[in-house]
């Protein structure tokens, strides 16, 4: 409250200077304003058409009017599709329980090392998918880390089982985040306490109260898990590339990047369209069911606008689901902590160590002991080509993140009108359209003019990631207390001054967050880049993928670490800033 009061005061202070200027505004009349608004809406709509509607429409038309008769010829489409769907379901079946358990476990306030674990569990999001998959092959594959140390290779890590495991690891953080947010928003500690004091034990509370309350969050996480697995390319390519294991995205890549005959091309188009169809089959019903439930507030009642004196009393020990004797309580927490730590070591730490060992080892088959360590691999990959690619990646990521933040904010603001809502819906659709499909659609729409240029890659990033920027900004606008801007304007501030003095600060974390998430995703994006790059426009992620395909382990490991560092370092650098903004 003092913060809000301070904001109001500062808004009031600015009144004398800004007052006269803005007071002139309304005289110009609402007609010009309406015009400006219409133009803005049209401009954003045009961008949506260019990025999303036209390419997808074109893809559908090209496939629909194909007369070659080879759309599904020669390709085991059914089998590839079955593999992909089975993989998506298997990943979801494992990642959703794991992520939910992690969120429930880490909601307990007395878990040892909770602060570290809560950060560590989402770290796989910052590790590029390809690097994660590749590090698993180095850790657990034949001739890998566990093979070297204990003679324990996991032979099928380079195959469906390994792809599944690595995808689970990369999906768990998403589930964790969604469920943790749902836990904070829906499963208030009071509700669990009410159940405990109604005679329910901890397990009964979990089954009867907590999980049902989390159902929308868990369902949303499951949908996202299915969609992201259908969309996944880097991990299957890194781990299943050499076997018979083929997903739709891999098949598209092979047909576009390895096949040179026309039939392969139309087959890639057909697969791209098929993939988006499968995705929509999952997403549309889920959205119809989930949408209202996720948006629904708790309705009338306590969480309404009633300000309760004393309601903000401390909620420390917030799990508050009751207590046992102290010893059993901490034993449970210690188990949670130990389990999560073990999981993180196996899923992330060990593979990363294995990757580092591979990067420091001069050649395959040389024991990764300190005596053999060398920086030769790093030296060999830090050549003009990869440095230029890094520059391109960083530039693309920054440009894309900046534009996306603006576009996301634009749609979030326009969305408060009917036409804007339609735009927001379209933008969200682009997020669930698989990257391979976006790339193929853009390629056949603009490839003739932009093929192989950075601009085409940028367009792909914008189309695919727009919703990623839009969501957090829109959420922040939703949460922004409606009275604050009005209070500032009632205190004499013009709209611009009011936005700057009152809205900018609370919205800053969302804007910065949107910028970061888009930047990070663009930096390690490979699904679309690898289909769109051309001479002189490789991104760093594409270089890493190519290096792995050629089969040189040491240089690939070194490149992978550099790519991961390129993603991690800026985020770690910006993290304190985001935190500071959040807590204010």
């Amino acid at each position: 409250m003092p913060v809000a009061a301070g904001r109001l005061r500062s808004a009031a202070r600015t009144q004398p200077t800004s007052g006269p200027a803005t007071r002139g505004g309304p005289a110009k009349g609402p007609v010009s304003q309406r015009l400006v608004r219409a133009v803005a809406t049209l401009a954003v709509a045009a961008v949506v058409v260019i990025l999303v509607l036209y390419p997808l429409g074109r893809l559908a038309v090209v496939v629909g009017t194909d007369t070659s008769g080879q759309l599904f010829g020669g390709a085991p489409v059914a089998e590839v599709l079955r593999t992909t769907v089975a993989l998506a379901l298997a990943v979801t079946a494992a990642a959703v329980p794991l992520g939910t358990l992690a969120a429930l476990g880490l909601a307990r306030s007395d878990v040892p090392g909770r602060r570290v674990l809560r950060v560590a569990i989402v770290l796989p999001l910052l590790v590029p998918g390809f690097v994660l998959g590749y590090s698993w092959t180095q850790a657990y594959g034949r001739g890998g880390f566990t093979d070297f140390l204990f003679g324990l290779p996991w032979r099928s890590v380079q195959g469906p089982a390994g792809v599944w495991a690595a995808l689970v690891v990369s999906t768990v953080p998403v589930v964790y985040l969604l469920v943790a947010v749902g836990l904070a928003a829906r499963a208030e500690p009071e509700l669990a306490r009410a159940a405990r004091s109604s005679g329910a034990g901890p397990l009964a509370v979990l089954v009867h109260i907590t999980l049902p309350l989390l159902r929308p969050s868990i369902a949303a996480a499951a949908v996202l898990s299915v969609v992201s697995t259908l969309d996944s390319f880097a991990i299957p390519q890194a781990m299943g590339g050499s076997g018979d294991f083929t997903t739709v995205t891999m098949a598209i890549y092979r047909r576009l990047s390895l096949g040179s005959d026309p039939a392969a091309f139309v087959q890639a188009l057909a697969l791209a369209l098929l993939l988006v169809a499968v995705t929509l089959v999952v997403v549309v019903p889920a959205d119809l069911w989930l949408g209202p439930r996720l948006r629904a507030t708790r309705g009338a009642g306590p969480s309404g606008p009633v300000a309760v004196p004393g309601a903000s009393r401390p909620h420390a020990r917030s799990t508050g689901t009751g207590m046992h004797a102290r010893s059993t309580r901490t034993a449970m927490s210690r188990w949670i902590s130990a389990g999560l730590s073990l999981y993180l070591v196996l899923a992330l730490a060990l593979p990363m160590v294995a990757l580092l060992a591979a990067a420091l080892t001069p050649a395959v088959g040389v024991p990764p002991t300190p005596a053999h360590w060398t920086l030769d691999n790093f030296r060999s990959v830090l050549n003009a080509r990869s440095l230029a690619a890094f520059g391109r990646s960083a530039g693309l990521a920054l440009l894309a993140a900046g534009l996306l933040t603006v576009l996301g904010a634009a749609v979030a603001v326009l969305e408060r009108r009917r036409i804007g809502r339609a735009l927001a819906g379209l933008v969200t659709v682009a997020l669930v359209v698989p990257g391979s499909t976006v790339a193929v659609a853009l390629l056949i729409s603009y490839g003739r003019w932009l093929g192989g240029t950075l601009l085409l890659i940028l367009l792909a990033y914008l189309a695919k990631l727009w919703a990623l920027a839009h969501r957090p900004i829109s959420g922040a606008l939703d949460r922004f207390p409606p009275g604050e801007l009005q209070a500032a304007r009632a205190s004499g501030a013009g709209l611009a001054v009011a936005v700057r003095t009152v809205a900018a600060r609370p919205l800053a974390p969302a804007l910065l967050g949107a910028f970061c998430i888009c930047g990070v995703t663009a930096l390690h994006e490979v699904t679309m880049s690898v289909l769109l790059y051309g001479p002189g426009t490789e991104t760093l992620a594409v270089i890493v993928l190519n290096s792995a395909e050629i089969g040189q382990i040491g240089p690939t490991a070194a490149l992978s670490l550099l790519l991961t560092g390129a993603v991690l370092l800026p985020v770690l650098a910006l993290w304190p800033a985001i935190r500071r903004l959040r807590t204010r």
Partner: protein
Amino acid sequence: MLQHMVDHPRRRRIGLLLALVGLLPAGCRAGPAASSQGPAPVTLYTCVSDSTIQPVITEYKAAHPGAEISLFRAPTGELNARVAADLRSGGLKADVIWGCDPLTMQGYVDQQLVGGWTPENAADIPRHYRTGSFVGVAVLYLVAVHRRGTPAPASWSDLTDPAYAPVAVPDPRVAASALGALSYFANAKGYGTDFYRALKHNGANQVSTPDLVTTGVAQGLYQAGMTTANSAYLAKSKGSPVEVSWPQPGAVAVYGPIGLAQHGRDSQQAKDFITYVVSEPGQQVVATAGSYPTRPGVTGGPEIPSGAPVVQPDWPAVSADRDRLLDGYQSIFGS
């Protein structure tokens, strides 16, 4: 509040929004513009390894100040796909193609994408390494790699012996050297496609590239495999537990030709580059970078062990037969 904002938008805010939307095309234009500064660069498509192509470009630029090379480097299969993609969207974008095998290159010539010119200094290159459309500038030798401790295979047919199982072979649809080997074995006495069938029968695994074969053997995944001499010797020199052998009737020599694209933008710059690679200084760079040059008398590069047998596929004969060869192979190793 938001409703309010939308109901009474201020000029400035929408103006800002418009400015940013307007900025989009401007910002996008910066993309390709940034990559095309200076004189129009020569666009080079190649499948030659980074360790060879980077020094060549560096030295070329040192010898030709102001010259720019825009590089697309990928294994042969991807190169083919790239060319096909170019053709779908308005035509080949390359000015120079430096391939890894004459079959693929001849394919480009047949499509009238490459050819019509070879540099004058091409005459210095042995006849069997050039045609009227392109010149070989590097040679890949397909040799056998095997784990240290396993006896060296005396002949290629030894690889069908269970003692060498499992064996790894590179994919001819991806790697030019593998395509070259297929070209040789398919028509060689006592081999033919039956050789591949016997390999498969012996549990042979197909991996995509020769480097993956070497890596797999070094890791102990495979006992032996077919790979390029460069890849095998490099791994051995760095300490990998592998040995290299040149089995009878010989290592398959696959030459990497360079050729001029027929509809390149600036053919003079492209010709300069090709001439440089064929020239003695260019070949010297190729050799120093670890590849086998085609120009006689260039030293300082990797050397063929004395007495090691080398065989040359009959390129003109197989080039007519390429698709049938790949189909036959596909029926054995195809997935």
